[in-house]
């Protein structure tokens, strides 16, 4: 499970060394462009940017394809929804189902946008350790007046990193439960409803227990929402300044055009 979505691959490339805040801001900027782009040239420019970033961080391209694989069903759903439900010039007809030219274009663009969003996000998570992302988010959120809402930027960042942490944990206990019930004769295909019920009850109770355990461990290690420091001394370096300058130009371009 660890190998699927958000796996951090340690390294020492430029991307790895950038301040997490720079990378998070970069991802936000990239998302803005991704959501705006609809032309072929724009798309190929994004591909070019992505590929050159991948080249600098020395992570095999295969890693990124593996990351989007679990989402393929979702992507094809988006694509076919657009293809069949957009009205326009019919290019294919079978009984009541018809695909339109506009649908094809819209579907392709929309799907590619999602693919790009995911790829750039994976670029961030595979070059930045989760706790650095957390530290980065925390620092970015710090100026916001969150305390009026009764939470601190630490709490918010902690929540994010803990939920990332719980995904593999839950998956492991799910596997154990499934095995235990399969060995007691559960037939998932024959009685799927029964399977869902009998698996979800202990899964919920184990995860509640896990949450309780972790919160005890956090409490006994003096967790507090404010006044924390981070093991990662994050700070901007020359590369970050260059990146920020590039961002400003890009932002200018984005607003003007």
């Amino acid at each position, binding site marked *: 499970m660890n190998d699927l979505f958000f796996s951090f691959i340690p390294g020492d490339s430029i991307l790895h060394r950038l301040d997490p805040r720079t990378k998070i801001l970069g991802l936000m900027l990239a998302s803005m462009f991704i959501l705006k782009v609809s032309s072929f040239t724009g798309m190929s420019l994004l591909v070019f940017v992505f590929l050159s970033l991948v080249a600098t961080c020395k992570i095999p391209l295969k890693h990124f394809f593996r990351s989007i694989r679990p989402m393929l069903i979702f992507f094809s759903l988006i694509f076919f929804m657009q293809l069949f439900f957009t009205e326009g010039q019919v290019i294919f007809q079978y009984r009541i189902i018809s695909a339109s030219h506009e649908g094809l274009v819209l579907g392709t663009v929309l799907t590619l946008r999602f693919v790009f969003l995911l790829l750039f996000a994976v670029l961030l998570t595979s070059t930045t350790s989760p706790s650095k992302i957390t530290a980065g988010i925390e620092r970015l959120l710090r100026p916001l007046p969150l305390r009026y809402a009764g939470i601190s930027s630490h709490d918010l960042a902690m929540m994010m990193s803990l939920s*990332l*942490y719980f995904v593999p944990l839950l998956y492991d206990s799910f596997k154990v439960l499934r095995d235990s019930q399969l060995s007691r004769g559960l037939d998932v295909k024959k009685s799927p409803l029964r399977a869902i019920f009998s698996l979800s009850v202990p899964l919920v109770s184990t995860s509640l227990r896990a949450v309780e355990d972790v919160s005890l461990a956090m409490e006994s290690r003096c*967790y507090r929402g404010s006044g924390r420091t981070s*093991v990662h001394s994050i700070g901007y370096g020359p590369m970050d300044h260059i990146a920020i300058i590039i961002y400003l130009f890009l932002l200018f371009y984005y607003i003007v055009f």
Partner: protein
Amino acid sequence: MISIQNVSYSYNGHIPALHSVSVEIYKGEFVAIIGGNGSGKSTLLRHINGLLLPSAGSVTIKGMDTKDISSVFNIRQIAGMVFQDPGSQFIGMTVGEDIAFGPENLGLPPKEIRRRVESSLSAVGMAGYNDHTPGKLSGGQKQKVALASVLAMEPEVILFDEVTSMLDPDSRMDILSLIKQLHENGTTVVYVTHCLDELVHADRLIIMEKGHITHDGDPRLLISRGDVMNSGLGLPPIMELSRRLLNAGFFEPGCFPLSREELRDVLCQLK
């Protein structure tokens, strides 16, 4: 150092888990608290660092009351705790980050945090594991990391809650000798267990049963007198053998052998 006065506690308002328990724990002691499943031993332990607050009575560490919200932070820094399940006490995504969690909460500067991470990792013999994922370590290694993450806060007391019950015999011995070493270096140790063969290093034994402290004293005396057996715990084979040899007049209660090594030496001397 730790003073527990007439503490009672019940979960969710019913089923009392502790009945007016009083005990003093002094600086530098190695206290083992022993009892069966559900005897209240873990509940008592969780009162010491304020994870649980007494329904009646009071708990103080170095004069600070655990009920006083302003001192809870200091209390938990002084009294660290290692839990039973090695898998469920990780907070960080890598070993180094997990150990850094405590010092981060203390608000230490990054450089000092990194120093503490390094030194506590090497203290448990796991130097170089900084970037490992906790999930991929063995049970014994996980428990060592958990201990390191407590050491990184530089506590004066460490509370151990059945820390070996999910480990294999080899890792158990590893952890026990680490704890012994810590005690020798001056850390006060409170060790909760249901395995009698783990208290070889303890210099004081507290036996709990149904929320009461039934016995408190020298481990050798308590075991040789049979107080432990009367508490329904059952002796491990070696101690059982020692007791039968004691009754057959092989040795005095004062030098009652607690471990295989001790029994072997006593018998070899008799030859």
